[in-house]
């Protein structure tokens, strides 16, 4: 007579097999101490960070529920290449798992390509890519190590967009930085001046800006970044960049005020100005 197989009973609580945690056990989420998974020196900032994210007006607007259906991750371009998935982020948010949110923000959040496919397809109408942006934004505000690491190779772009009003410049395409763009890019970079001259719009003829914004426009852009507090966040992430932008801002603001004053008094001699304020 065959021996009857006896299976050990499984607990009723489905959270028993919560694969998000290294140690599996019957402990329910209510009992689980999320803080115990954080390094002691990180606990305070992790809690503050998560509290700030939850208090942002967008958080409740963007997070509406989760079926755990995985439609988001199944269509996610970044999930095909990285250890990243929007579903896991939504699940951590739903559970209020400060430890996992902390880990996700420091390791994975920058993998997202912001295509918004997940947001469009989510049956719960979660604005998933928007939630990722909230995490990224607060990681810059809190000057988290991942933000510093990510922004280090990006600082020239930040300087350009804030001080000139343009995100990219034609002359950033250099053979040593964009070799994968092929021989065409090398040819362009060698003869950039004449190629730009052959673009039939005067605003597009410089090599150091995408289009030529006016001095007043550039100063207004910096004013918005200063007054809205964005520049203050940069102080924590990249102090040198912050100092550089503030110096440029003060100088250009003064130049603009002087020019405006002269213009209003009818004392501005246009011929004495260089063709571009970028050459001043």
């Amino acid at each position, binding site marked *: 007579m065959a021996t009857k197989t006896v299976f050990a009973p499984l607990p009723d609580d489905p959270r028993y097999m919560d694969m998000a945690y290294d140690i599996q056990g019957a402990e329910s989420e209510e009992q689980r101490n999320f803080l115990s998974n954080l390094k002691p020196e990180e606990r305070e900032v992790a809690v503050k960070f998560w509290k700030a994210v939850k208090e942002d007006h967008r958080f409740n607007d963007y997070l509406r529920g989760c079926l755990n259906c995985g439609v988001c991750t199944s269509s996610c371009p970044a999930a095909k290449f990285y250890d990243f998935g929007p579903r896991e982020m939504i699940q951590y948010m739903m559970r209020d798992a400060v430890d996992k949110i902390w880990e996700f923000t420091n390791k994975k959040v920058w993998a997202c390509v912001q295509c918004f496919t997940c947001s469009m397809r989510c049956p719960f109408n979660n604005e998933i890519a928007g939630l990722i942006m909230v995490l990224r934004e607060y990681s810059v505000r809190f000057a988290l190590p991942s933000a510093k690491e990510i922004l280090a190779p990006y600082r020239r772009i930040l300087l350009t967009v804030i001080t000139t009003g343009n995100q990219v410049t034609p002359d950033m395409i250099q053979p040593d930085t964009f070799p994968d763009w092929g021989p065409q890019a090398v040819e362009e970079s060698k003869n950039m001046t*004449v190629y730009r001259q052959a673009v039939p719009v005067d605003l597009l003829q410089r090599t150091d800006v995408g289009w030529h*914004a006016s001095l007043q426009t550039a100063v*207004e852009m910096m004013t918005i970044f200063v007054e809205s507090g964005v520049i203050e966040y940069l102080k924590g992430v990249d102090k040198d960049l912050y100092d550089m932008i503030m110096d440029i801002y003060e100088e250009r603001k003064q130049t603009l005020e002087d020019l405006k004053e002269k213009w209003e008094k009818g004392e501005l001699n246009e011929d004495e100005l260089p063709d571009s304020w970028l050459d001043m």
Partner: protein
Amino acid sequence: MVNGEKLAQENVEKKMNEEIKDAFPMSDGLTWDDIYQRVIYRYGSPHNLAHIKEELYKLEDKGEIIVHHIKPYNNPMEFQSLNGLTKKIPTTKLWQHKSCGQCGHIPGYPTSVFWIMNKLEVDYLDEPHQTSCTGWNYHASGASNPVALAGVYVRNMWRAYETDYFPLIHCGTSFGHYKEVRNSIILEKEIRDKLRPIMRKMDMDIVVPEEVVHYSEWMYAMSKKAAAQKKYDVSNMKAAVHTPCHIYKLVPEDTIYDGEVWQGRRPAAPSGTVQNFGAKLVDYSTWWDCCGFGFRHILTEREFTRSFALFKKVMPAVNEGHADIFVTSDTGCVTTLDKSQWAGKAHGFDYNLPVLADAQFGAILMGADPYTVGQIHWHATDVEGFMRKIGVPVDDYKEKFIQYLQDLREGKAEPQYLYPKHRKIDFYLTLPERVSWYKKQGGQANK
């Protein structure tokens, strides 16, 4: 069925049709399935477009914001958005909101838009008083906040408002991002309260245009008129289209659809433009997928971008759709799809599928010089090969262009312009009389 019941049934159907017509004014030509999809979008999203518009006009009535309306002299055309609401597309008197990446790395993109506008005698204004929307920076780095994003949007919109030209957004990210920012300004009092003092510092107030309009929507609206001027036949050409994510996935309900294009199940632009110019639209399984741009990835993590663009977009377009050309309608997508193919050669993936923006595609077909206007020499893929297939005298154009470059270098030629050059002072100050000065110069139209 007795007569009474039949009559009651007919009344129900009549009433239902009236209600549908009322709820979806542009429902003619749509099937029940299409209407069902739109019902889901209209009522599925908590901040649907109808609600946003309603709140916008309430704020205008209260005097909290200024609305930049589309006027009859903007010659608007009406289309339907994803949820079946009417979206107005102004077709003339347009303020050009340029794109960083287009102007920086694909200059033939904006110049093709301007050239087509000249050909169609569209009134437009392109000024040095515009900044980036900063959306690329935001999505890449997170180094911004909702008030700064709103400030950048409103400052640009103010500059358009004071000229009375309606803003036309060139970049797909700017378009999607501005739709999102517009919604946040309308729905969040806190943002308006923080924004107003910042705008006051610049002698501005909060302006929100009635519609956020992408140039590809304008291009689609004008495509039949533009195609009437085409010089080359593309009926034997197979065109794969990539619809940019930020056009239709970011605030999805505010993008135009048309029953004539993919049965109204995919955005009208740029597929409809390609179709109206006579090319054969081909399908491929990853039509809905991202191009791989990634915002941060294209700049600092391009191994992802290259692989994604090649394996998930270019290869399916060629292997499944047998495409001769890839047409798209956004900065990042043109850059990514075009620049990511060359590196693939090192691994034996030599596809070299030419990539063009819908505006460049249209301008070239309408007879624009592919070098001085289309600026196709900035592209890495074989655009010349595509032009040879459709009969463009590429070699003649190229020879002339090389001579032009030589003359520019030696100072023997003056640069050519699509519209009159700005004054020196316009590069410094934003003067109120700038529009009247510009008009005295004869405006745009190739003068």
